[in-house]
C-alpha cells in the first residue's frame, strides 16, 4: 500500500510524558508510525495504553514531549497555535467519544461549524450539510438541538461535523463507546462509506472489537508503544 504521495500523518519516535503531582506517566513511548492517505486505521489497546494520547498527538491537540509529528509532510511539532488552528480547520476532523456537540447549536449548525469558520457561504454550507445528512441517514434532523437527538444521531452529527469540510484526516476517539450495537454499526457503515467514497483517512482509537474488525489496518498499543501493526 505504499504510495509515492505524502503520508496523511506520520511520527518519528514521539514521546508524551505527563507529570501530575510529581508522578511521571509515559503515555506514549517512542512511537514511529506512518499513516497513508485513504487508510482506515484503528489504534487498539487496553485503557491507559496511550491510544487517546497518540490520537491527540496526531491532531496537534497535544504537543509531543520528544520526537516529531508531520501531517501531510508538514511538521506540526513546533507550529504556532495559530498555524495549528488553521491546520485543524482545513485538514482535520475530530469525532469524540462523548459526541461533544455544542449544545447551543442545532444539528445543522454543529455540522456546518468548520465550513462557517472557513468562510463558506450559507447556501453552499446548507447544500453540503444536507447532502451529508442524507448520506448518513439523519436527514430531517437539521433543526434539532443535540439535547433532542439520540446518542447515535448525535454521534452521526459529530461525524458529519468532522467530515463536512472534507478533511484529509479524521481522528475519532471511541466514537462508538456510548452507542448500542445497532447505532454503532450504522455509524461505522457511514464512516466506511465516507472512506471509500471520499478517500478520507480515518484513524480510530478504540477497544470496540466490532470497529477493529472493520479496520483495514490495526495498530495495537501496549504501555504507550506499538505492539503490533497489521494491514489487512
Amino acid at each position, binding site marked *: 500500500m505504499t504510495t509515492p504521495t505524502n503520508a496523511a500523518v506520520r511520527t518519528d519516535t514521539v514521546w508524551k510524558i505527563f507529570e501530575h503531582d510529581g508522578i511521571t506517566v509515559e503515555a506514549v513511548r517512542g512511537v514511529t508510525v506512518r499513516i497513508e492517505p485513504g487508510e482506515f486505521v484503528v489504534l487498539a489497546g487496553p485503557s491507559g495504553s496511550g491510544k487517546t494520547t497518540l490520537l491527540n498527538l496526531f491532531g496537534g491537540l497535544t504537543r509531543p514531549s520528544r520526537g516529531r509529528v508531520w501531517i501531510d509532510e508538514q511538521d506540526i511539532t513546533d507550529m504556532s497555535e495559530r498555524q495549528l488552528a488553521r491546520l485543524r480547520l482545513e485538514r482535520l476532523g475530530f469525532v469524540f467519544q462523548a459526541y*461533544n456537540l455544542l449544545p447551543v447549536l442545532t444539528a445543522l449548525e454543529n455540522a456546518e461549524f468548520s465550513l462557517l*469558520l472557513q468562510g463558506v457561504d450559507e447556501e453552499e454550507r446548507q447544500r453540503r450539510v444536507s447532502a451529508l445528512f442524507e448520506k448518513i441517514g439523519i436527514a430531517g434532523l437539521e433543526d434539532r438541538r443535540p439535547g433532542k437527538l439520540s446518542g447515535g444521531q448525535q454521534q452521526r452529527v459529530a461525524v458529519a461535523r468532522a467530515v463536512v469540510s472534507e478533511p484529509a484526516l479524521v481522528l475519532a476517539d471511541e466514537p462508538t463507546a456510548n452507542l448500542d450495537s445497532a447505532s454503532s454499526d450504522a455509524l461505522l457503515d457511514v464512516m466506511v462509506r465516507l472512506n471509500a467514497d471520499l478517500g478520507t483517512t480515518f484513524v480510530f482509537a478504540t477497544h470496540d472489537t466490532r470497529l477493529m474488525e472493520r479496520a483495514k489496518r490495526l495498530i495495537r498499543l501496549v504501555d504507550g508503544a506499538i505492539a503490533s501493526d497489521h494491514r489487512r
Partner: protein
Amino acid sequence: MQRLRLIVRLALRNVRRQARRSALTAAAMVVGLALLVMSRSLADGAHDEWIEAGVRLGSGHLAFQAPEFRARHAIEEHLSAADRAAVEAALADTVIAPHLKAVAPRLEITALASAAAAAVPVTVVGVDPAREPAFSEMDQRIVEGRYLEPHDHLQGFVGVELAQRLRLRLGDRLVLTAAGPDGAITDQLVRVVGTFRTAIPEVDQSLIHIPLATAQAWLGVDSGVTTIAVLLDASWNADRFTRRLQEALAPHADRIAVLSWRAASPELDAAVRMDDYGDYVFHGILFIIIALAIVNTVLMSVLYRTREFGVVRALGLRKRDTALLVLTEGLILTGISGLVGVLLGLAVTWGFFHDGFDLTAFMGDQMTAAGAVIDPVFIPQFRVVQLIQSAVSVAIVGLVASLYPAWRATRIDMAEAMKFEA
C-alpha cells in the same frame, strides 16, 4: 467576519442556555447598577441641593461684583448702573439665558443695628423684593410676619436670633447705622416686617434684608449694587457659564468680576468635592463587587465548559477566538443587565423617591454643613451624562471582569475534549 458572527451567535446562545446562571449574574449586576443609579442620582440630588442651599444663602451659582469687593467688603466697591447694564447684557446671552433661574441684585453692607434694648453689628442686604424670594427663598423661612414685598419701603426682614437679641417684635423699629461710600455715617429706620430662621446661627444672628431702593437711598449709591447674584437651573452649569461670562465681560474686567460659587464659597466647594470623593469610593466598591460577580459567573461558565472549549478549539477556533467568545458572553450579559439595571434604578428611584429620599431619621429636621442648611429630604437628580457614565462604566467593568475568564479559556487543554468525564 463570519467567524465573528459565529462567535457572537455562540455567545448569545450560551448566555441564553445558561439562563438561570445568567439570570443570577445579571441580577447581581442589575441590582448593583440599579443601586448605583439610585445612589448616584440621590447623591447628585443631595449635592445639588446642598450647593443650591449654600448658594441661595450666599451669592448664587455665579455672582458679579466689583473686583475688590470680595476682599474688602466695602460699599465703595459697588457696581454702577452702567456696570449693571453690562451684566444684564451679558446675561442675555442665548446660551445662558434659558438656564437662569433667578437674578438678584443686592447691596450688602455691614452696619450697626440699634433698638431700644441694644445695638449689635449686622449684615444688611438690600434686595429686590420682586426678585429675591425666587433666589434666597427667605420667604419660606419665615418664623413670624412676612417677607418683603415690592412696594415696601421701611420694612426689614430680620434673623430670628437677632430679633430676640434686640428684643424686637413685628412692627418694632430698628435703626441701621452705616457709612456710605464717602465715609459719612448715616442712619436708616426700618420696621420688622418678618423674622426668619435659616438654622445657620451666623445668619440668624446677623442678617437683615431691606428693600434695595431703601438701601440705595440710605447709603447714597443711586442704583448701585454690590453683587448681582445669579441662580442657575443646575449647579454643574456654573463653571462653564462663569468662563463664558468672564469672556463676555472681559472689556469690563477692571470693574466687574465674575465669580462662580466655587470661588465664592471655597468651603462649600471643598466639602462637596470631598463628599463626591466619598461617593466615588463607594461607587468604586460597588463596581468591584459587580466585577467580582461577573468574574465569578463568567469564570464558572468557562471552567464548567472546558470540554466545549476543547471541542471548538479542536474544530479550528483559535485561542483568540475562544477568548473573544468569553468576552462577548461577558459583554452581552453586562449589556443586558446594564440596560435593565439602569432602567430599574431609574424606575425605583423615580417610583419611591421622586418626592425625596428622607433621611430625617438620621439627621433630624435639617443640618448645616459648610455654611449651608441641608434639608434631609434629597430629591434625586437624573442626568443623562451620569446615566451614560454609569452604563459605560458597567460595560468597562463587564469587559475587564471577563478578561481573566477569557484568558483562562485560552488555557484550556484541547485534549480535555477527548475525555469522557470532564
